[in-house]
């Protein structure tokens, strides 16, 4: 009962604000001066969900696969790069500024180039998602590996720990809270990457569905697609947060990253 009450206290205001926003949206959309093709009302969007359910879900699945695979590539490559940069200082000093600079490249303009390079299939989508998610993962893991206090490293040295033992027993666990911070950022931007990838050229996926629906003036379907993309991003964030609670329990009792 008290857990239910705590849940209600936490999420009640969120639900209320969301309900108010939807109501306001419905109100504005119902005004005579608002063109139905510009702004679909929530009821029309709900109708689109009912009419196009299988179409939406099929494309949702396509985009979800792109996002998850892209994220997986970014995690493996990002964490791997961070470990290499941590262990080998010359690489860190050479690569870090370039890594930051690479973030300044607008991914939108890369998408068509990737389509040229990787063809029409899933390749360019994965490349875009991975590219967008690589940076937050790499930078956070690297920061985490380097967050260990010098005194602790000194202690490990005096205990006779090898470089590998220090990495495994101290630096790696210390980097986990940072990794999850990066993963949460990556999870929330990954969906944007998949949409860009699909816009540059695709024959399926929610991003393409939204673009196509816009061209064909199917405004309610466009909105339904956007709602699903948002749900996907929020769900991925929540999943990352849940994994964090399981994998890094000490961070909750401790308050701040060690």
């Amino acid at each position, binding site marked *: 009962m008290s857990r239910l009450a705590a849940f209600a206290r936490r999420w009640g205001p969120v639900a209320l604000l969301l309900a108010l926003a939807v109501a306001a949206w419905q109100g504005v959309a119902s005004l005579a001066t608002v063109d139905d093709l510009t702004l679909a009302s929530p009821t029309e969007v709900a109708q689109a969900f009912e009419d196009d359910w299988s179409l939406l879900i099929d494309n949702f699945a396509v985009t979800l696969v792109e996002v998850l695979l892209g994220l997986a590539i970014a995690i493996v490559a990002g964490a791997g790069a961070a470990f290499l940069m941590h262990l080998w200082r010359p690489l860190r000093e050479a690569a870090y500024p370039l890594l930051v600079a690479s973030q300044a490249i607008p991914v939108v303009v890369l998408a068509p180039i990737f389509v040229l390079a990787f063809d029409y299939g899933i390749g360019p989508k994965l490349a875009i998602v991975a590219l967008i998610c690589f940076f937050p993962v790499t930078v956070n893991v690297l920061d985490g590996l380097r967050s260990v*206090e010098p005194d*602790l490293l000194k*202690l490990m040295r005096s205990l006779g720990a090898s470089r590998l033992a220090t990495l495994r027993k101290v630096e790696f666990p210390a980097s986990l809270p940072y990794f999850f911070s990066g993963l949460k950022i990556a999870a929330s931007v990954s969906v944007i990457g998949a949409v860009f990838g699909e816009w540059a050229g695709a024959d399926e996926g929610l991003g393409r569905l939204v673009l196509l629906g816009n061209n064909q003036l199917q405004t309610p379907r466009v909105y339904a697609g956007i709602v699903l993309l948002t749900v996907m991003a929020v769900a991925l964030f929540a999943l990352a947060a849940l994994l964090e609670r399981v994998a890094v329990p*000490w961070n909750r009792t401790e308050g701040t990253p060690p």
Partner: protein
Amino acid sequence: MEAKLEVPAQEPLSLKAAGVTFSDVTRRFDVRARRRRGADAPAKVVAIESLDLDVRAGEILAVVGPSGCGKSTLLELAAGLQDPDAGSVAVAGEQHTATRREACAYMPQRDLLLPWRDAAGNAALALECQGVRPAQARRRALPLFERFGLDRFERAQPAELSGGMRQRVAFMRTLLSGRDVLLLDEPFAALDSLTRGSMQEWLAGALAQEPRTTILVTHDVEEALVLADRVAVMSQRPGRIVAELEVALERPRVRRELVDDPVFTGLARRALEALEA
């Protein structure tokens, strides 16, 4: 929480007598001067200069000195974490850095417990670093919890332990490294004064059970006199030993009784005079 601190009698873990000798040791540090145009000669700070100190095998030596006098540098030199710029440091007659490191157990000022390991896991870390498998290291760490007044706290997370308890876990970790020489760098500086008092008695008991050559660095003269067989007083930077006092007080020493002991107050006065000279 801190009430019961006796250390029950048991066989010591190991004992190999090893002395520590500092001969004419000098240690300097580069202090990167703020780059200002004109005056940016790299400054050298002399932490320790021509220091001689002989720590006898099995003795508890306290080093007292003002802050910044190079006390911690002294310990890190013995621990093989640093090398002298001039002179020599030898542990059990060996000067080689790696040999010194393998002979000494260094306990830094803060407990530095890993928040993702429970108390037993933290104590076991010392053994794991020497290649003992984690499960076995843990098994070997567990008996110490009862001996050192922490039974039932084996599985406690560091965040759940008081400052004194955390220091005791850190001390167990230091002991489990199985080294002949203990180097304690102001182990109780971060504790409140009541806890510090009981921890000093606890450490005295622990060292009686686990006799080791011990160098204890502190800025607290009373702490030094309660714990040590001998007290070395260091000067302001550059650090030198300016006085060595034999502490001929009976053990076990109880702080509240010592306060009225003329030998104790006499020694305390001599130490303070040497500090302020």
